[in-house]
């Protein structure tokens, strides 16, 4: 039996007609894809999940109000970079070329972000950093610059760490204990610059590896050099090892830290001395909340079964930064009136006012300033049991 060519043609015609009919409204309803490249596996997976949740809660709010650009819904597309810069670039490429995302969020880790940003500038797709604090991510020298950030910036955190230590602990001779990677390096530079500006000489600079067990030798050197405060930069695991090593040495010294300890169960890992570590945060869900804060907590409890209260919104900075960043990005798209990369970039400069979690943003971005969070927006926090609470609030 032979198939008549006519019937085949008719079927094709029908299909084409249907596709045509579907295409017109599809354009208006086609979702706007927002990409996210971050660590979704490995030690930092929890932080990647926090970013996801912050973005998703914001996306749900925006979609519930009818989406953007005349009814187009937002859709989150996630890729795992396994904290590996090469994998991050591959994932970002795929999101840009195949998924055709409007904006790429990403890079929990500074090295990954540093690798992705040049691609974004080349392809003219805006990049939004909700976590990685490396100074060079937004200050990358590109013109025009497509990298924006709603998070801490090492350079500013480092100035803040010194100022906080001087005010709280009368620090005169700090010792630096830093993770041996680009993040540690970025802060070594920042801390040294901050100290030089204030005429402070450090007792010493020591490094550790992410999986080091015993940091007594490094810390003994700092102690022998007369350090009166420790500036610590490292993720939660090694930060806990620093604290445990201090405990073994019986050395009680104030510790002022970047936000590494916030990334996990610091109290369980570090023991009784965990509460003595003061670290920087951009937001805390404990204490008195703004109406936005209360709304987000409610939404998180309703959406995620394992969230019972503020203590389960962890790490808080991931959720808060991502939530604000997603809303600001939506405002930029709305201001741009399209999903073209360069229009969105200029849309960021047109954002006037937004009431977010971290603060009420007023003109958060200008062609010169691509970081929405500034020095006075930081919160100093400590662990009380398993809760991250602002220092002094207890």
């Amino acid at each position, binding site marked *: 039996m032979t198939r008549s060519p006519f019937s085949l043609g008719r079927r094709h015609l029908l299909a084409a007609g249907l596709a045509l009919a579907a295409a017109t409204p599809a354009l208006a309803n086609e979702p706007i894809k927002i990409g996210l490249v971050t660590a979704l*596996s*490995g*030690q930092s*997976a*929890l932080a990647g999940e926090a970013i996801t949740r912050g973005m998703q809660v914001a996306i749900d709010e925006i979609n519930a109000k009818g989406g953007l650009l005349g009814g187009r819904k937002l859709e989150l597309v996630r890729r795992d970079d396994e904290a590996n810069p090469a994998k991050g670039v591959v994932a970002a490429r795929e999101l840009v070329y195949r998924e055709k995302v409007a904006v790429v969020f990403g890079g929990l880790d500074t090295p990954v972000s540093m690798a992705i940003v040049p691609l974004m500038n080349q392809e003219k797709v805006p990049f939004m950093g909700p976590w990685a604090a490396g100074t060079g991510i937004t200050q990358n020298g590109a013109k025009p610059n497509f990298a924006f950030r709603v998070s801490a910036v090492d350079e500013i955190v480092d100035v803040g760490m010194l100022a906080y230590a001087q005010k709280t602990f009368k620090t005169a001779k700090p010792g630096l204990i830093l993770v*041996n990677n680009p993040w540690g390096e970025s802060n070594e530079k920042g801390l040294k610059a901050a100290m030089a500006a204030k005429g402070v000489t450090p007792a*010493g*600079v*020591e*490094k*550790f*590896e*992410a*999986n080091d*067990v*015993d940091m*007594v*030798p*490094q810390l*003994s*050197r700092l102690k*022998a050099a007369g350090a009166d405060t420790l500036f610590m930069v490292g993720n*939660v*695991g090694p930060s*806990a*090892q620093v604290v445990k*090593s201090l*405990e*073994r*040495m*019986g*050395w009680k010294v104030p510790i002022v830290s970047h936000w590494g300890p916030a990334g*996990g*169960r610091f109290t*369980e*890992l570090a*023991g009784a001395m965990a509460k003595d570590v003061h670290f920087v945060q951009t937001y805390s869900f404990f204490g008195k909340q703004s109406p936005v804060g209360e709304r987000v907590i409610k939404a998180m409890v309703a959406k995620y079964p394992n969230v019972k209260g503020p203590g389960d919104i962890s790490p808080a900075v991931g959720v808060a930064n991502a939530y604000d960043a997603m809303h600001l990005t939506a405002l930029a798209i709305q201001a741009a009136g399209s999903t073209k990369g360069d229009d969105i970039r200029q849309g960021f400069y047109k954002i006037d006012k937004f009431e977010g979690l971290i603060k009420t943003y007023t003109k958060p971005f200008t062609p010169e300033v691509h970081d929405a969070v500034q020095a006075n927006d930081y919160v100093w926090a400590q662990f009380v049991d398993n809760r991250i609470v602002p220092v002094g609030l207890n």
Partner: protein
Amino acid sequence: MLVLSALVSGLGLGSMYGLMALGFYVTYAVSGTVNFAQGSSMMLGAVLTYTFAQTLGWPGYAAVLLALALCACYGLLVEWLAVRPFVNRGSDAWLMATVALGIVLDNLVMATYGKEPRSLPSPLAQAPLEVGGLGLGVYPLQLVIPVVGLVLAALLHYLSRRTRWGTAMLAVVQNRAAARLMGIPIRRAVGLAFALSALFAGIAGVLIAPLMNVHSDMGTLFGLKAFAVAILGGITSAWGVMIAGLIFGLVEATITATLGSGYTQIVTFALVIAALAWRPNGLFGRAEVKKV
């Protein structure tokens, strides 16, 4: 004071490397192959102990014993899945296969055990040791580890050199065919070696867990350093491997304490290369003599 505390903590670290490296020694001595993902076996010991003792609330000894037994079973599995199929075909692909199996295990553990590092408490790691009111900077556990390592090395040495069974095991690597003709059960000997190897790594994991954080990639760096130690010790001698571990740990801690941590990796591994250039068969190894 600086050097003393470095010595004590170096001894503790070094014996952990040595203990792991013994695992490389056992399988190499019997079969000429190793499980490159020895760090994953160590992680398995720690994670299982944590799960039984903390999550399920079993008494400590039961948790440790079952965890170690399961580690030994995992060793058998490594040999069966990742080593035997390739050795039988005369291929060296077991190199990659053992690494691959280790990665599979790491990710399985991450999916089931979770992504967050956890802490395993131990009565031997509660309060640091003090001598005359001065903190030495070590927990009692850090002194137990070298003892366990040296005892195991001695036991292995005795078994392999002084017993019929040990000699039979060593015969396997010399000449498989001849060993089989002599009635030595080769398959069982090699399987047993891999079980022992994973068991040693498991013991290391259980001992190290209270000192570090328990998570799915806790063994990676340790496995690498242990391999360097095994090669440095000349992989063919149990004593050599254990002592090389102690030397490695001591050198590492001393360099950190005197030159600063910026130099630790550079100087330690440069010394490993220098030592191997000076003695290509390792500090305590002998050149292999093929007897025909």
